């Protein structure tokens, strides 16, 4: 009798519960991510748009949409616009965030009112990007408050026409992205730094390491995985830059389409219900994102794994 019970128990498998628990993710992923992804890919082979109220297509055209985008349109230019504006925003963002994260989590400084500062730097991210962009559009317009200040303070005689110049338009977009995301990055990096064993830092301090040495020799190498995570998520977010420039430049990437990002270009096709070209642009963005992510990951993580391997070898 006893043996029988044991046998029966043995045959019960708990592993199925594991599948039940992960099922919701896969169901949601398949319905909301995988199927749309595949249908976008599928759509990119068709001529399919609407003129007025008349539907044209869908008609299978093979790779025509890709050929048209790669030869006739300025997609490489829009990709460059996007990447330039991302870098302009990301470089100050990572520097300032790293600095703030170090200060905030430093056992040496023991800053007061951390909760307050953490909330304040996160604030800009809570505003809707479109509203934030609208705010900047008004502030930096020819007759806006920034120009009134500049003129009345005597810095310039005529208002600076920020939104008609390439550098200032791109700069404003990068600045807005920086303001919106540095708080988020700071908090991520702080979590990373606090995950580092404090005894390592204390030990090195006792051994007489300077702050810079502590940072470069201990914190930075151990923080690398988090930094890579921040970089890749920011890169993907940057490639998908849309709402800020769309609102600031009236959707046309003024001046001279120099602030037109890839997603704004995609939006133009989707707005005229051109699913074929839209699909092709989306697929290209997908490939570009994948390549860049792999590139960034490999480049930065090579160091990390390399060092780990060396350490193991040393033992």
């Amino acid at each position: 009798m006893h043996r029988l019970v044991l046998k029966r128990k043995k045959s019960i498998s708990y592993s199925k519960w594991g599948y039940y628990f992960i099922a919701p993710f896969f169901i949601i992923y398949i319905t909301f991510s995988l199927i749309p992804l595949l249908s976008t890919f599928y759509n990119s082979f068709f001529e399919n748009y609407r003129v007025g109220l008349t539907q044209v297509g869908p008609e299978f055209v093979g790779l025509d949409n890709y050929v048209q985008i790669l030869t006739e349109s300025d997609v490489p230019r829009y990709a460059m616009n996007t990447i330039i504006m991302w870098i302009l925003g990301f470089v100050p963002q990572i520097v300032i965030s790293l600095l703030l994260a170090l200060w905030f989590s430093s056992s040496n400084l023991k800053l007061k009112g951390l909760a307050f500062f953490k909330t304040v730097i996160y604030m800009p991210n809570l505003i809707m990007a479109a509203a934030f962009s609208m705010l900047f559009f008004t502030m930096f317009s020819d007759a806006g408050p920034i120009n009134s200040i500049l003129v009345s303070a005597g810095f310039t005689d005529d208002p600076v026409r920020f939104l008609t110049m390439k550098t200032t338009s791109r700069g404003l977009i990068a600045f807005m992205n920086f303001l919106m995301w540095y708080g988020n990055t700071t908090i991520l990096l702080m979590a990373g730094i606090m995950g580092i064993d404090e005894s390592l830092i204390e030990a090195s301090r006792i051994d007489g390491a300077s702050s810079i040495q502590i940072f470069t020799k201990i914190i930075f190498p151990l923080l690398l995985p988090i930094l890579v995570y921040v970089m890749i998520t920011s890169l993907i977010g940057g490639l998908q830059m849309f709402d800020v420039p769309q609102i600031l430049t009236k959707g046309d990437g003024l001046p001279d389409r120099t602030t037109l990002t890839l997603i704004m270009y995609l939006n133009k096709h989707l707005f005229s219900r051109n699913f074929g070209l839209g699909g092709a642009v989306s697929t290209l963005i997908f490939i570009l994102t994948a390549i860049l992510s792999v590139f960034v990951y490999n480049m930065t993580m090579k160091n990390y794994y390399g060092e780990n391997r060396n350490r193991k070898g040393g033992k």
Partner: protein
Amino acid sequence: MKKALLLCVLAALAIGSLSANGSQDEMAVEEGKVLNIHCWNTEFQDRFNAYYADKVPADVTVNWVITPNADNAYQNKLDEFLLQQENAAADDKVDIFLVEADYALKYVDTPYALDVIGDIGLSESDIANQYGYTKDIMTDADGLLKGVSWQACPGGFIYRRSIAKDVLGTDDPVEVQKALDSWENFDKVAAQAKAKDYFMLSGYDDAFRVFSDNMTSKWVEGNKINIDPAIEQWIDMTKTYTEMGYNNKANLWSAESWSGAASDGRVFGYYGPGWFVDFCLGPATKADADGENAIGNGSYGDWGLVKGPQGFSWGGTWIVGAAGSDNLTLIKDIMITLTGDEATLKSIATEMGDFTNNEKAMAEIGKSDYSNAFLGGQNHISEFLESAKSIDRSNMSPYDQGMTEKLMNSFSDYFNGTISKDKAWDNFYTSVLELYPNLTR
């Protein structure tokens, strides 16, 4: 026993649903209880609320769906609704939608717009006094009238009286018109205004409609984009004006543009039709937006209107009944009241300052002692009378809105001096082809 009971219940349900079906069929003859109106701003809503709202049956709810015009947003949303119209529930169907001159033609030749006379039931006499051109635009290939308007849109040059006095020495409309009766004279006055530190025009797009309305060919011939000489003229004039500092470099509808009309504004004048006077410029000149429409509130009342160097018309809004609507009687009554009824149209003209769509009523007001407070007591209806008769919109195309918007955006870079003219044309074609993939350069 149980089975018998179940059968009885089922039978009762079946009969019940049958009778319910029957009563639904009878209901169809009755009018729907929700009137869905699609439009892009509150212009029609204001008129509707002021002159019709109290005639709406108490049990009918008017549901406004307002989507801004810019970037084709309104058309895209309306198209979605119209394409779903057949499958939508009766209370969700579009009943009335408004169309603007720039894209009216897109809807005229479709089955989505009801025939005003055949389907909705207006009679020829209801609309006999409407301006011919407002009916020509909305007449489809089979000769059916698909929409009616309460306004006609002859335009004029609306000038700041105090600035005219300073520059020309007079603010009398007759004298001002003499000074501005041709483009050469207009340029001369622009130079004089500049000398006194005023701007003749607010920005790049202000004179656009004067040229685009006088186009002698359509934007699109076949499927090919066509550039009319009038458009080239606008580009050259605007570039010159920008280089000479005759305009304030503002974009149309922008805050800068309106601030030029404020009490300390330096803009000589704006081009615009009747609706521009009462719906756009009028409110923008008031220092206290909620304050009275009276002299002393900002620059309100410091304005006058003349024909300017060239007659033109701008815009116009038509009321269209949507196929599938269950409120035909109500739509008919709205159309008759707001576009056919002489008394209502007279009130709209005298109370709101709009130039309304009734030749007889306009002629009467033109001769009357009507005076517009915003225009310093001028009877602007009489200024418009002549140009209203000669409006010819036979060169409209369904693409006008996209062309206008993309042209203004692309060329603002050229006027700003950031790019060459050829580059601006390239950008224009690129944007237009993104918007209308069926066209060719």
